[in-house]
């Protein structure tokens, strides 16, 4: 009887420990807890984050970019997205834009030329939206399934909002077969 009671106590302690371990394992890890607040929205509509709103107004792909007099080639394909950016209640700068492919790889805007629109170079006042294009290099195989990511944070995106907009990219092979340089629209006041 005494042995049985001891065994019972032992089993009870083991069960409590196992339950504790299970609770610990089931809770999200630190990286998951700190992830950005994803704000998903449709292409062509305003997607509203904590301090900004972004609309992906158009998207195209290109084999070459024409920046000033320079032609920029790529081993993959250029994704050129037209953005409309606005501030919500106070001035904001957009410091991050990227695309995520189907495998989860994230490609940020290129720094092969200045992209003031999404590198914090434009101070956007509430009520005065701006627009312009950004260019991102991706492997051609990734171009079919891309999600645009936009944030006002620069490198530390933890627990702040990040807009996620699926991009309808088509005709990658056509563009690569007949490469023609395309210009990138510089930031300007949105109409």
């Amino acid at each position, binding site marked *: 009887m005494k042995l049985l009671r001891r065994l019972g106590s032992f089993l009870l302690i083991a069960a409590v420990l196992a339950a504790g371990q299970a609770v610990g394992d089931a809770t999200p890890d630190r990286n998951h807890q700190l992830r950005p607040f994803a704000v998903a929205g449709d292409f062509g509509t305003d997607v509203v984050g904590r301090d900004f709103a972004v609309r992906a107004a158009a998207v195209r792909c290109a084999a070459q970019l024409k920046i000033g007099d320079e032609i920029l080639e790529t081993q993959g394909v250029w994704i050129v997205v037209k953005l409309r950016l606005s501030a919500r209640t106070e001035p904001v700068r957009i410091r991050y834009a990227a695309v995520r492919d189907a495998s989860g790889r994230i490609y940020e805007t290129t720094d092969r030329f200045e992209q003031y629109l999404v590198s914090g170079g434009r101070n956007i*006042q509430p009520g005065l939206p701006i627009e312009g294009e950004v260019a991102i290099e991706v492997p051609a195989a990734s171009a079919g399934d891309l999600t645009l990511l936009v944030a006002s944070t620069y490198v530390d995106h933890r627990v702040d909002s990040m807009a996620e907009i699926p991009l309808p990219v088509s005709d990658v092979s056509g563009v690569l077969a007949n490469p023609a340089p395309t210009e990138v629209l510089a930031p300007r006041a949105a109409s």
Partner: protein
Amino acid sequence: MRGPDSLGRGWWRRNVWGLVAVVPALALMVYAGVYSDLEYWQRGRPVQAPSAADGSAEFAGLRLRLVELAPTTELKRSATAAFVPPEGVTVWRAVIEIESPDPEKSPGCTIVLEDRAGNRHDTEAQELTKARVPLANCRPDTDSGGPAPVSGRYRTVAHFALATGVDAVAVRLSFGSFDLAVRYVRLSLPR
């Protein structure tokens, strides 16, 4: 689990208060876990300092009064050419009178304009980069040819870009942060 005790009470009856105490103990544990973050967040929120009924305020060792808050078309692009704001943009000017015991040592400030909807606008609007505007920082503006402050009284002038049709109602001045908290004073024109 032993049988009934000398008073004839079973396990549940003997431990009822302990079980009841688990609930507040759990609540206390959760609160203790988030307390420091909560306090940090609350201390980081801007705090409004009081201002007098006539629209003036004593703040950061200065006496501050808003004397003008109105749209302006008088900005210059160069010494001779007038500045024309982009389409759909109205330039607002805020003039703040400052009395300082020692203007040379007046602290620098940031000035933010508040519109009727409560949105805030800063003095670094992209729309005004081509205009010649004085630095709006609560310090005597002697470098750009302004008069030297007489008897410790001078003016600081701030310019803002607002969408045409949006009304400004007040300005907020802050002089940096003290003990973590950002304090600001809100000045509006006396009615």
